């Protein structure tokens, strides 16, 4: 469907260009003076020394959520891999010893060089096992292969760096709700 966008016709003052140009000059002058006199309000920051505040809902590096006992919550269903438009997720499934858990990933790789950070995998996950709220936006590796994050890397995160109201994260080992969750899970580790 072709959508016709109607532009407001310019009046003759605007068509003269001169006054509009002066208005533009005034605008840029405001910005220049802001940079000079109120340097601290610049939206850009000197990057490596100062990092921007990244909100929790920013789609950053992935992580695998953990059960209270530290195993990945992932059930290796492959929904994320199916949803992934870049085909960057590789999963191998396996059976588990735990009778209550039918299927678990034996391998869960995300190739971050291929990933387009669309977040569809997070949407697709039926058990909330995959999240992109690590706020890690830059990762540097010496080799291409290192950008393929294996399951262990995705599972390595610290509940202390996540907010208290994120109860799902706090149920992981080391989190504040871990003991409570372990009791409910029925696997007291002692």
């Amino acid at each position, binding site marked *: 469907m072709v959508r016709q966008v109607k532009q407001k016709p310019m009046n003759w003052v605007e068509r003269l260009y001169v006054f509009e140009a002066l208005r533009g000059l005034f605008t*840029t002058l405001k*910005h220049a003076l802001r940079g000079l006199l109120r340097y*601290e309000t610049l939206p850009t920051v*000197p990057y490596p020394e*100062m990092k921007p505040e990244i909100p929790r809902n920013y789609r950053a590096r992935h992580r695998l959520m953990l059960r209270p006992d530290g195993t990945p919550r992932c059930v290796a269903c492959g929904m994320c891999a199916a949803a992934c438009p870049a085909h960057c997720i590789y999963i191998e499934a396996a059976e588990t010893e735990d009778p209550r858990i039918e299927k678990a990933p034996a391998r869960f790789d995300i190739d971050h060089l291929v990933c387009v950070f669309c977040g569809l995998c997070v949407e697709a996950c039926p058990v909330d096992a995959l999240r992109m709220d690590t706020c890690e936006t830059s990762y540097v590796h010496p080799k291409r292969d290192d950008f393929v994050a294996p399951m262990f890397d995705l599972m390595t995160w610290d509940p202390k760096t996540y907010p208290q109201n994120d109860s799902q994260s706090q149920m992981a080992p080391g989190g504040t709700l871990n003991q409570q969750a372990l009791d409910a899970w029925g696997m007291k580790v002692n």
Partner: protein
Amino acid sequence: MMEIIESKHWIEWIITIAKFAFAFVPILFILLLIPMERRGAGFIQDRQGPNRSYIKIPYFGRIRLFGWVQNACDGTKLFFKEMFAPAGVNKWIYMLAPAIPFAIVLISPCVIPWFAPMVFEFGGQVIKIPGMTVDTEVGILLLFGLSSLSAYGAVLAGWASKSKFSLLGGLRTSAMTISYEVCLGLCLMGMLLLAGTFRIDEIIAWQDANVWGIVAQPVAFFCFLIAMIAETGRAPFDVAEGEPELVAGFHTEYGAMQFGLFYMGEYSHIGINSILVACLFLGGYSIPFVSMETVQSNLGISLGVLCGVCAVAVLAFLHLLYRYARWYKTCKASNKEVILREYSLYKILGWCAVVVFAVLGVLSAVFIHPEVQMVNGEAVYGIGVALGTALIQILVLLVKAVFFCWVWIWVRWTLPRFRYDHVMHLGWKILLNIAILNLVVTAIAAKLLGGN
């Protein structure tokens, strides 16, 4: 030979020769313009601009000079890069082309008056020294002639590069330079008509006596400014360059210091043009509402005021510095210790400068009382007074020029680029007509009001 030498007093010779140093003022403008352009562009676009290069000195650590060091880095890089030429070019022309605009930049300032003609009494003689390096009746025409020559640089570069991009860029540049030269000249004609001379110092004198050019010829000023920007080939008139069409225009095939010469030529050109606009329309070295006689008769107080202005400027700088430092103390930057240490150097230097300026100002206001002699009914002062006045006037001119430099940058980062045919349309069909109309109206008005 001896006659020529003896025709002038030795002090006159010294000052005349010393005036040649003014040829380097436009080149010094580059040092100011490049950081101003870069960080100004940054601030206009809500960015930081380049501020990373630093010099390491003992105790104070990394000195960034607010991005000023970037100049040195760029220069060093360009200087040590390999100079190469594309295969099959005419090497002589290829090498010569970048030198032309740069050479013109060195010659052009010869007709610009840096101070009012000095008249002073020395060794029993009354000595008169004009403010420009070359004291000629042709004046501004020489300047125009020289700046038109810079088109040769572009054309030769474009032709010698053996590249279609370069050739087209060179053609466009020359076409545009020539088109806007016409406008430039015609815009100026009104001003020349009013002042009745080609000599810039006389135009300034007329402005000092009557009213600034910007008030007398506002339309001409405006057109002149546009034509000047166009002539330097900068945005919004940078049709000679353009990534999608012409790559970098006539200097596509140039690298290293050859490119550096073009680059410096462009910025120096801006410097010269800024000075010219300041001279022609902003009263040049004249201080508004203060006549030269007043300055000369109260030189001590004048210098005191100058020092005071400088001290206030340094205080304003210190104020900004303290504000930045206060912010850095509270922010999360990992390098804030480094930056605060760097700032401590600036603070020390700034306070020293404030003290020096304050002391100098007070001393000059208290102790300098010029002695006046009456020669042929005119008040003539000593050489000290003349030099002091010249210093004040040079500074005034440079302040006005720097303001226009900022206008150049400001316009570049504000207005969108014009298409080539629009540029030509604007030049030939609009600006030229306005300039002619302005000339006619000025001529009639001048005649009616009984000017010269």
